[in-house]
């Protein structure tokens, strides 16, 4: 790190104004869920006598509020929980550990998704989506596999890459521009089975937050978004078992206290068994197929002292595919996170994390007497130190540092007969970040969250760096020793968001952020594949940069029953990657020579109405947006629509509780077809018909839309045991949504070319049985 660049940060520390009198005392503590002891993230802690004095609990449920000596009432609230008011006589620093109870509407006897806070209006956070798996568990999904990633794609500004595709696009960014974190560990491929399912087993998850913009300075590493997934801590009150049996998979979760209210653990497992049905198939080829995936989530936490708490969490998931003994293909992620919370004082909270992440795939082939393997992996070790400092009730300062050691093992073949590619040439890089941010209440109307992050990336040896000529051939090379810097990048990432409170129920927010991205995913196919390659920034590949500004209006109606927001954004992206004509990415040791670099821009408006309380809940989201790209070598240097340039995107999600026991749900999705390059003509050379192209992405796929419905029947619900059935239908009206449109010769008339549409899912019913005790 450059010391010179750190110095301005220390100056920054003194930007906020604080007047700390000797008479001030601090109330600190934690807020938890009374049912299971889970930490409540983002719960609101307010002084009733002075509502300006408000703080939100951090991701470990910790809060700290400092104010003048005196008598107060402190109000604790969180969406879906009953409000608690605690009178306090403040004459010394006080610790208050609070447990909130979930709201139950006694009149109807139905748990309506209870009391809601107006945090969406009052916080400085914008362009942020929070989902709890619990709140969306009845939404109908493909094969009945609850999937938080698919639900996120029904939110404004987030576009799924389509059926059979793993990724998603946030405000025009690429699929590799999303930082996906599972308990702080980056996940490099969040999909199972070519993207039909995500790796996130909802049973193990507590909360998901997706930042489309205005990212806090504590996050860095990707250009467009952060998807922050947090696993449950495990029930610290009692043993709890839950599970389900579905059409293609079964799940089981066990959680229990290690010592009551001191520590707990959770183990959650899921495995699919789609291939078991294949054994019944009459087709000899299909009988030979093995195809399944599994996930294992584990987490334990323990409070060692009043000030110290340890967390250990891990994820292990694998997809396996095999055809007889000839082809084997497996891929998967492993992550582990060790965290240590330490409360230095009632005002200073610290978390230290040691994080491991690995993604790899392997293809095994054997025929006759030869076998060989194709392998690739990316592996990270990450050390992260974060502090939350609460100097007074108007400021919450967070600062921290992290350093990641990346090891890339590029695709290579080893086998009995052949060795090809970089078997030994691992690539190494160090990525670092240092940040400071302050959430400051200026006055009743205005709150700011401003921060600055400095990120750096050092592509280091041991290795050989090449430079390439225009035709892609190596023109020079240089060897580097272990740890020697090949190329160093770094940059400042300012992050600012502001909230202006118009009145009690409405606010205007604005934000601006810059993000650097030093890792890039190379994929030149229309569908994502487990073999898509992560590469580091290097002497040839520059870091991607995105600058975004956004402004929004937020208003709640009917005592927070309805949340309404409108946001607009403009994003400019630099050093974007595209591919040379005819680029070969798979098993290419000179893959960097196949890339071209350009710029992108995205802008749009997002409309969102969310009804949170009552028998009918759900949301309507509409996004109007454009995403364009420009490369000197592509499309004659003219701007062209990106593949994800969908102009209209609509999602309607509704959940209706008919009775205490029967819940209906449905969602309808519509979006403009992806931009695609289709031929404008054809010609014949060497006896073969060749398509003639005019504009990149100048055509459009047909619009996508579908309706899914589901019904959940709670068979039994007592304090001790709960069981339910869920039946759902995906694509009820059997819409032909194109997965791919290809062109082929008409069988009867070879002179005739016709367009052939392949659709994946038309009317797919599913059921599952779920239990909990």
């Amino acid at each position, binding site marked *: 790190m450059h010391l010179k660049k750190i110095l301005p940060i220390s100056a920054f520390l003194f930007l906020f104004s604080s007047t700390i009198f000797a008479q001030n005392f601090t109330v600190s503590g934690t807020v938890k869920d009374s049912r299971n002891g889970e930490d409540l993230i983002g719960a609101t802690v307010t002084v009733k006598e002075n509502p300006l004095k408000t703080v939100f609990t951090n991701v470990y449920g910790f809060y700290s509020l400092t104010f003048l000596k005196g008598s107060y009432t402190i109000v604790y609230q969180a969406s879906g929980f009953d409000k608690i008011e605690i009178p306090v006589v403040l004459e010394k620093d006080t610790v208050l550990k609070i447990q909130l109870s979930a709201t139950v509407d006694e009149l109807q006897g139905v748990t309506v998704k209870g009391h809601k806070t107006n945090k969406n209006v009052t916080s400085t956070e914008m362009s942020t989506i929070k989902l709890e798996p619990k709140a969306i568990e009845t939404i109908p999904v493909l094969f009945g596999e609850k999937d938080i990633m698919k639900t996120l794609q029904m939110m404004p500004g987030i576009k799924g890459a389509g059926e059979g595709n793993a990724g998603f696009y946030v405000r025009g960014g690429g699929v590799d521009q999303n930082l996906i974190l599972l308990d702080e560990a980056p996940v490099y491929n969040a999909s199972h089975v070519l993207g039909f399912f995500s790796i996130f087993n909802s049973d193990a998850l507590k909360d998901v937050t997706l930042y489309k913009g205005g990212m806090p300075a504590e996050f860095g590493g990707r250009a467009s978004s952060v998807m922050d997934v947090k696993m449950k801590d495990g029930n610290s009150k009692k043993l709890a078992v839950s599970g389900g049996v579905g059409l293609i998979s079964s799940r089981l979760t066990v959680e229990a206290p290690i010592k009551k209210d001191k520590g707990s653990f959770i183990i959650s497992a899921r495995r699919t068994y789609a291939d078991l049905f294949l054994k019944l198939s009459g087709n000899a080829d299909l009988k030979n197929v093995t*195809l399944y995936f599994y996930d294992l989530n584990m987490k334990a936490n323990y409070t060692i002292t009043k000030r110290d708490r340890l967390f250990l969490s891990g994820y292990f998931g694998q997809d396996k595919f095999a*055809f007889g003994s000839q082809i084997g293909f497996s891929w998967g992620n492993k992550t582990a996170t060790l965290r240590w919370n330490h409360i230095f004082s009632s005002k200073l909270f610290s978390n230290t994390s040691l994080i491991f992440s690995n993604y790899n795939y392997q293809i095994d082939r054997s025929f006759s007497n030869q076998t060989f393997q194709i392998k690739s992996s990316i592996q990270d070790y990450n050390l992260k130190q974060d502090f939350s400092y609460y100097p007074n009730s108007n400021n919450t300062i967070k600062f921290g540092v992290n350093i990641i050691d990346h090891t890339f093992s590029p695709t290579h073949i080893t086998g009995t007969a052949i060795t090809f590619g970089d078997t030994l040439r691992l690539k190494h890089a160090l990525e670092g970040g240092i940040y400071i941010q302050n959430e400051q209440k200026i006055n009743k109307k205005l709150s700011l969250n401003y921060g600055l992050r400095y990120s750096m990336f050092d592509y280091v040896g041991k290795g050989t760096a090449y430079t390439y000529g225009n035709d892609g051939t190596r023109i020079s090379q240089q060897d580097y020793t272990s740890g020697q810097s090949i190329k160093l990048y770094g940059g400042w990432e300012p992050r600012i968001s502001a909230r202006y409170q118009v009145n009690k129920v409405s606010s205007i927010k604005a934000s601006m952020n810059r993000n650097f991205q030093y890792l890039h995913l190379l994929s*030149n196919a229309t569908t994502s594949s487990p073999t898509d390659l992560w590469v580091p920034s290097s002497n040839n590949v520059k870091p991607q940069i995105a600058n975004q500004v956004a402004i929004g209006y937020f208003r709640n109606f009917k005592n927070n029953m309805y949340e309404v927001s409108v946001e607009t954004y403009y994003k400019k992206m630099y050093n974007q990657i595209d591919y040379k004509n005819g680029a070969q990415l798979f098993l290419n040791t000179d893959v960097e020579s196949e890339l071209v670099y350009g710029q992108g821009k995205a802008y749009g408006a997002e409309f969102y109405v969310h009804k949170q309380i009552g028998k009918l809940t759900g949301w309507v989201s509409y996004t109007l947006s454009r995403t364009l790209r420009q490369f000197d070598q592509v499309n004659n240097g003219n701007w062209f629509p990106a593949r994800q340039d969908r102009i209209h995107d609509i999602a309607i999600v509704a959940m209706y509780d008919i009775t205490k026991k029967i819940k209906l749900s449905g969602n309808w999705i519509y979006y403009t077809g992806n931009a695609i390059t289709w031929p404008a003509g054809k010609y014949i050379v060497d006896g073969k018909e060749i398509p003639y192209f005019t504009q990149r992405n100048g055509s459009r796929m047909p619009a996508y839309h579908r309706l899914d419905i589901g019904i959940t029947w709670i068979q039994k619900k007592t304090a001790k045991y709960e069981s339910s059935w869920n039946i759902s239908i995906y694509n009820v009206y059997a819409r032909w949504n194109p997965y791919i449109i290809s062109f082929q010769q008409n069988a009867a008339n070879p002179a005739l070319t016709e367009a052939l549409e392949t659709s994946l899912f*038309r009317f797919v019913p599913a059921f599952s049985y779920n239990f909990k005790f």
Partner: protein
Amino acid sequence: MKNIIYIILIIFTASCQRVIQIDLNSADPQYVVEAKLFEGTRDFTVRITKTSNYFDTVTPPSVNNAAVNVSSSTGNSQTATFMGNGWYKIPNYNAINNLTYNLTITVDGKVFTSSAYLPSHIAIDTITIDSTMGGGGPGGPGRGKRYRIRCGFTDPANVKNYYKLSYITNSGNPSNQRQYDIFDDRAINGLQTSNNLRGRFNEGDSVEVELESIDAKIYDYFNTVNAIAGRDINNNASPANPNSNIVGGCLGYFGVFTSDKRVVVVK
């Protein structure tokens, strides 16, 4: 990879297919040039056509009013004779290895030019026929005895070489098309090597194997035309017109090839 993805799709989806009508953009017709010059004394031929709309069923329109000239870096400038239906020809043009050849086509006030290098002759050393049991992949085994053919040759060291290795099975059958692979010498530089032909062959097949050496730009043309030729399910996300070695705004290419051919009968 493609097979794997295909199988996974079959299993997880009741995927269905249908023929649909789609609207494509139309474009002004472009000139298409297919010019081929071989080492030694052989006919130099050029075919000039135009593009047609993608869904048209008519044969592509031919261009019959062009002036075609070819010359080498040492002279030997000759003008081709129009043969009808878009064809132009110089009979028995003598092309000498290690010279650059220039093509000039003038049509409707437009001028298309290209130059290409004719590399040294590369000879086929050996043709090897191996029997194989099916091969990997679904439905592979149990299909009886089939054969692979390998073409052996020696790559010259010290120079960058680009190859086109092609074959046609039972060329008397008009429905059989010539298949080819292209590759460069990055993995075989200076080595005596033996490359598999892409296909599998049956007993009794007559196979004509041809090894051609080409320059970098022609290699680039074949490489980029291959990228858009396939219509497989995992197709290219960013298709573009092939990189032509002809300047002036036309499609197609000026091919200058060395050539060595062998015919073998599989047994």
